[in-house]
């Protein structure tokens, strides 16, 4: 290409004067490593502003930090099980107010799904009473039992299908859930505790009696 002054000789392709170095001058070294983590500063920083406003905001900030930790919005991470359970820990738990969000403002899928049959019983009862249908009593009871069983199956299968298509079933579930929540005051926390309890989930399979089923072998050991 034009401008190749001489083979093998180093030549700048641009006017070195323009960038500020004179010819023949030693160029600054090439930096071969990343800049230091805590570089030295030539000048000390200016001291912070002080005054009444600043002091007040400082106190506010620290107070807010403490208050936030005590609010119900602060979700504690569940602690790992310690090898020895300390007696005092039970009595040193900080009391936190429960917080129930306004479900009307949130998408339906936010509501905790009721996996446990126990909770299902309560909700179904409330639901049925909430609907206020005027059925006559004896037929009513039988119908209720049938409905409860069917509802129990419906809910269980909902929970299983959670991984797959969610929205259609969810909307139906959510529909029922809304009525339930309107009818009763179910604590949010209670939901969560019951959901985490896998034991109960597997215990209540379809078709099992409520609580009466235990090991058949037990019958033998009654003396």
């Amino acid at each position, binding site marked *: 290409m034009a401008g190749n002054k001489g083979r093998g000789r180093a030549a700048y392709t641009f006017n070195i004067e*323009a960038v500020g170095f004179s010819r023949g001058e030693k160029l600054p070294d090439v930096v071969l490593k990343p800049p230091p983590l805590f570089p030295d500063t*030539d000048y000390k920083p200016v001291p912070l502003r002080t005054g009444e406003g600043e002091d007040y905001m400082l106190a506010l*900030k620290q107070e*807010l930090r403490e208050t936030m930790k005590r609010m119900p*919005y602060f979700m504690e991470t569940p602690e790992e099980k310690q090898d020895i359970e300390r007696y005092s820990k039970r009595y040193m738990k900080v009391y936190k107010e429960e917080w129930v969000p*306004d479900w009307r403002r949130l*998408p339906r*899928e936010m509501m905790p799904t009721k996996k446990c049959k126990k909770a299902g019983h309560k909700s179904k009862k409330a639901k049925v009473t909430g609907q206020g249908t005027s059925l006559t009593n004896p037929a009513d009871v039988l119908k209720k039992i049938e409905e409860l069983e069917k509802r129990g199956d419906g809910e269980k299968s909902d929970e299983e299908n959670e991984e797959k298509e969610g929205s259609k079933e969810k909307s139906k579930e959510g*529909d029922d859930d809304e009525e339930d929540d309107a009818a009763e005051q179910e604590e949010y926390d209670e939901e969560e505790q019951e959901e985490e309890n896998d034991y109960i989930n597997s215990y209540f399979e379809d078709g099992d009696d409520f609580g009466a089923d235990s090991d058949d072998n037990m019958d033998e050991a009654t003396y």
Partner: protein
Amino acid sequence: MTQAEIKLCSLLLQEHFGEIVEKIGVHLIRTGSQPLRVIAHDTGTSLDQVKKALCVLIQHNLVIYQVHKRGVVEYEAQCSRVLHMLRYPRYIYTAKTLYSDTGELIVEELLLNGKMTMSAVVKKVADRLTETMEDGKTMDYAEVSNTFVRLADTHFVQRCPFVPATENSDPGPPPPAPTLVINEKDMYLVPKLSLIGKGKRRRSSDEDATGEPKAKRPKHIADNKEPIPDDGIYWQANLDRFHQHFRDQGIVSAVANRMDQTSSEIVRTMLRMSEITTPSNAPFTQPLSSNEIFRSLPVGYNISKQVLDQYLTLLADDPLEFVGKSGDSGGGMYVINLHKALGSLATATLESVVQERFGSRCARIFRLVLQKKHLEQKQVEDFAMIPAKEAKDMLYKMLSENFISLQEIPKTPDHAPSRTFYLYTVNILSAARMLLHRCYKSIANLIERRQFETKENKRLLEKSQRVEAIIASMQATGAEEAQLQEIEEMITAPERQQLETLKRNVNKLDASEIQVDETIFLLESYIESTMKRQ
């Protein structure tokens, strides 16, 4: 979102809401809009925890949801809103200066809880104020309501979008998520409530003292059995209005520094008059006539009309162009150039940073390049009257830190470097962005250091808290001086020294955070104002 912003959001969320919410929040900020199950799968948390975390985030206006086709609801995080959490103390302090303690507590409750109904806010604030009053006195709900109405009238609190009341004869399944609407007119409409009552004082046995063993608390007493009159009408703090106030404060104090107190008062009056009439992101306020300004000056100021006119002329002629003259009717129509004012403030911040970091000679070169827009290397040396070697060194230092940039102007179409002009220039927008990024990094560093310091001395802090609790309980049961002395000596002198140092350091770090946040606000406002104009 830059890495620095994400890191800062992560630290803020963790401090305020815990690790689970932080994990979900940061994931949403990183990846954008996502449906529920994808979040649960990607973060590896259980569905139920994700739901809880999302409820908390939505409550605090940090996450919004949208219904997409096929009924899928997607959640999106608002990164800028998360960063505003840094500014909470400033919002609360501003409310205190404008509306005294009542206003301060109202804004604090709204910020801590995200959204609340008016009746809930009034009740809580009245209770809190009653606590601080002397025995026997209580705070009336009416007074708190009045302050709330005043806050709503000046737009400091606004209504949240609400669920529209649909008729029940809606056929088909209900939608997966409610679409929230808000009308411009309704945003500041206070519902007609007759809140009658007084604040209740909490019984002293109910007060929590961390460290004191307590019996199991009774479950939350549901004393809200009566239907709430304003159910469904939620209020939130209007952060934009606070930002507008901060911006006005910045402009007024800049004028006061540059000129004198009287001119800053005039500017403050003009800004106050245009508060409601001008939208917050307008480049300049509505024109105000000199007569109007004269009438609206605060009562204490008795300057004559001519003096006012002189001041206005002076302000309009000032090279910084905070105030501009837009016409001659009504004794002279004047506007405040908000965009230019923000630009001047941002430039002043940049200049100050260069001065403090690199020295006053560098600052001279910086101001020179700013003023002359484009300069060659040789010209810089000549105009700044600094020897070539030093000038070159300083220019390269600033160039490497991206305060100054290089503009190439080719003489020939083949852009040959030997035949190209290289000009130094300052691009204010990109320098402001760079500085903003550094500020985010600084605050993240400050928070990390503060957490580190606290963690290092955790054992000592806990010990001192326990000792304080013991002393407090002993004082309550009436103990002798000697016993108290003994308990106090449980903390040795070097430990006390260590605690003092820790406290001083933490205070310094906190105060630094607050001050860096002020710079962040200025730069963010300037960048936002510039982007809106393009």
